[in-house]
């Protein structure tokens, strides 16, 4: 009895470790080696924080017939909640995780072993080390101040963030509730982390040093003043885009949204443009990362998807990267030329977030925002 049990345990152990070995072995494979294994698996599930996964799905299935990519558009915040619940249940639904909100992802998903890093060997030498670890960043995304260029043909109507706290902009600044979308909380957090710059900008705007009124620093004071100035909170980025960008408005508001949503201007009837010159910075720029589930059901197909999402060997990355090769998204691959219509990354004045640092005071800023509502 005992012997048989031991044998069974041993067999299980060997099976498990060989599975792990097989998985690990795949890390060194290129797309050509992964493909037959992936086709055997036949399907792969992707959780994506962007609706562009729909385009990726069509392109992937065209490029690799026989593999059914199931893409699910789930906000980063919700992905985190869902992945934690699934891990608790011992269920793995997703093979590939495509997500922003890195301050939370690193602590809640990576350190807890729910997701695992993966860098396709094919592109490893063409992505900066800072974007390979701890997770592979596919591109940089943004939450920045945008305005309506149809109503403001001469450029941004705002040159300093502090203007948004004045009467001129009362009830005319739109953003997503930072308590409902993590990247907006990251934006608020970054404003506080950059309090020195905010203090300097205050003096430049009003000609006097900032006097703190119940706030711990200039960043907090800005958030408090912004909320006191009747900032309008909406439920999703697209609501901001419509509010700010819709054509035919006499006196449109400004708002914080994704620079890359400018790509939809023509299709949606918007006139979104970034206020890049606003002092001290228009907003934040942050990585969108790709990761594997810790134990993906379809390990080969999952790796193939990540490989695909990093773009092929054509000049602009081909169909896998096409949905992301747009003005306002900054692809991390060094050999892909920057998008011609966008402000070059070096000239883009948005703050780069440091996820680990953001994580330290993020909850505190969330509480601050909470008291203002």
């Amino acid at each position, binding site marked *: 009895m005992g012997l048989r049990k031991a044998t069974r345990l041993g067999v299980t152990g060997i099976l498990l470790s060989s599975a792990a070995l097989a998985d690990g072995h795949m890390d060194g494979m290129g797309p050509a080696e992964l493909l037959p294994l992936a086709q055997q698996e036949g399907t792969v*599930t992707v959780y994506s924080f962007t*609706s*562009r996964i*729909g*385009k990726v799905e*069509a392109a992937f299935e065209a490029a690799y017939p026989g593999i059914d990519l*199931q893409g*699910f*558009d789930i*906000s980063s*915040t*919700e992905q*985190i*909640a*869902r992945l934690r*619940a*699934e891990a*608790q*249940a*011992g*269920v793995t*639904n*997703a093979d590939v995780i495509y997500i922003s909100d890195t301050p*939370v992802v690193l602590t*809640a998903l990576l350190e807890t072993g729910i997701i695992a890093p993966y860098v396709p060997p094919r592109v490893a030498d063409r992505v900066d080390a800072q974007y390979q670890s701890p997770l592979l960043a596919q591109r940089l995304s943004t939450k920045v101040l945008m305005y309506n260029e149809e109503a403001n043909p001469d450029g941004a109507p705002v040159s300093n963030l502090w203007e948004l706290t004045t009467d001129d902009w009362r*009830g*005319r600044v*739109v953003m997503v*509730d930072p*308590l*409902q979308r*993590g990247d907006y*909380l990251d934006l608020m957090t970054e404003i506080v982390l950059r309090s020195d710059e905010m203090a300097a900008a205050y003096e430049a705007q009003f000609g006097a040093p900032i006097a703190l009124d119940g706030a711990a620093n200039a960043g907090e004071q800005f958030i408090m003043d912004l909320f006191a100035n009747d900032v*309008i*909170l*909406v*439920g*999703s980025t*697209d*609501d901001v*885009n*419509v*509010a*700010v*960008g*819709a054509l035919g*408005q006499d006196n*449109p*508001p400004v*708002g914080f949204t994704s620079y890359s949503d400018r790509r939809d201007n023509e*299709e*949606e*009837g918007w006139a979104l443009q970034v206020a890049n010159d606003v002092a001290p910075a228009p907003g934040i720029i942050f990585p969108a990362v790709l990761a594997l589930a810790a134990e993906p059901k379809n390990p080969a197909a999952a790796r193939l998807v990540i490989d695909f999402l990093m773009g092929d060997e054509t000049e602009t990355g081909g169909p896998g990267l096409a949905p992301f090769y747009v003005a306002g998204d900054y692809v991390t691959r060094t050999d892909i030329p920057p998008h011609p219509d966008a402000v070059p990354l070096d000239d883009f004045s948005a703050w780069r977030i440091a996820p680990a640092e953001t994580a330290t005071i993020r*909850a505190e800023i*969330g*509480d601050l925002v*909470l*008291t*203002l*509502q």
Partner: protein
Amino acid sequence: MADMAVNGHGRRVIFQQGTVLKTMVLALLILLIVLPLLRSVLFTLQPDNIRAWSDVLSGRLATSLFYKPLGNTLLIGIVVSVGCVLLGGFLAWLVVMTNVPYRKTIGVMATLPFMIPSFAAALAWGALFRNDRVGGQVGWLQGLGLDIPDWLAWGIVPTLIVLTLHYFSLAFTIIAAALATVNSDLVEAAQIAGAKGRRILMGIILPVTMPALVAAGSLCFAGAVSNFATPALLGLPVRMQTLSTRLFGMIEVGQVGRGYVIGILLVAISAVFLWAGNRIVSGRRSYATITGKGGRAKRFDLRGMRWPLFAIAMTVLVAATIIPVIVLTASSLAPSSANLFSGWTMHYWIGQSDPSFAQGIPGIVHNEDIMRALTVTLALGLAVAITGMGVGLLASYTTARFREGWMSAAITQISFLPLLVPGIAFGAAYIAYLGAPIGPFPALYGTFALLVIAATAYLLPFSVQTGRAVIQQVGGELEESARMTGAGFLRRLGAITVPLAIRGLTAGGILIFVKIIRDLSLVVLLFTPTMPVLSVLAYRYASEGFGQFANAITVVILFISIAATLIANRLQSKSQPWLQN
């Protein structure tokens, strides 16, 4: 008799009547409802999370986290429940007891608003009343040149109106069913004694239908305070928070501890209100109005008021049913929601995938995800209607027949509990409860079974309450006669109670089916890619800016709901006897 024991002196002592039944039902309800919620409570008591209590109740965040949302929540609950009972009661009275013109039309239309998801009604409100506060596209009325003030476009006023127009049909259904069973003996006796219409209304009909009025008010209160979609869509731009939007926000950003605390407090507050309501009902001894004899009373003659009252009723009904449906349908066809009635296209319904259009999403009939979700949703609706009515019948029968004792009170209170728990919190609790393996039982996360079990538990109040209002009126005398002739429990249930109460039970079944196929809040967390449901897909499309797909799916949900109701009506031709002349 299993539930009787006789001691040496021939007196029943060990078990009171119904004890076995009550114990079974109570155990079932504890498994379905109490344990998942208890898990949430225990979660907030863990050392890591216990601080959430002081944050919510007394810290510097308490005003924002709890007290302000609480004020809004109570205002919504009270205004909406009073409004619904008045409106639903008024319409039920017109349809059941008067000779108002087009009674059938009014009766059918009054049941429709509840089938329209409340988030759809809120979206429709926005399409009409949205002003330029949020910028971007304005609503149709502002587009016509009217200046819509903020208070009418956003916040508490539209929330109250939309929720009242949504929940009043629930009150109508319950009150109409009760009015239809008012015994003609009572009314005729009063008429013979010379009582006038008003006197009969106040002296007989109101008191007799009091359980239904209280049940209707309670259900509307509970529904309104836990509704998430409407205050979220209409309140967020003016930063109006209710406990449910606050709870959702907390869980969304991963502050689960605070979220659960808010949820627990919401449950506690609503429980106080419902306990008070229950006291009012159980203070009276008998509400039996369907007895072995008796017939229909004559209708009140409205005389000159027939058409004016008809006009009032139709104004409300058109606003609550036809307008939202037109707006939803139009916006499932219009590429731009700014111009609802021009440039219509069928792409969102029957178009093939086109990369340059809506991110390449094909029209809904060609969309695999939507078709799979349709199958799952229908199966879920049917399964939950059956399981829900099964448990609901047991519970309502038990509490109606064996009203005495703490166990009956507990059954009533527990079966009410899920109403007070916002769906999203209930979903979260169920993931914690059945998401991980328990002993030999595997984790149910992502399975059809989890959806069915959670939905059955979540919707139990509806099956129990609708069943109860009717069962309570089935006179105990009939069953007692059967018992004296030696019929067992199952026999009595099958031969007397069920046939007499089938109307209420069927109504409950329909209510459950309709409620689950258009429910969003419960399934939004239970949803997994392999087990998709329509409402979540609609919500996802809406939140990603593909409003047309969302509205097209909503129209499908609407169509199924209406079809379900019509089929059920046909199968049960007696289900609305008040419509017969």
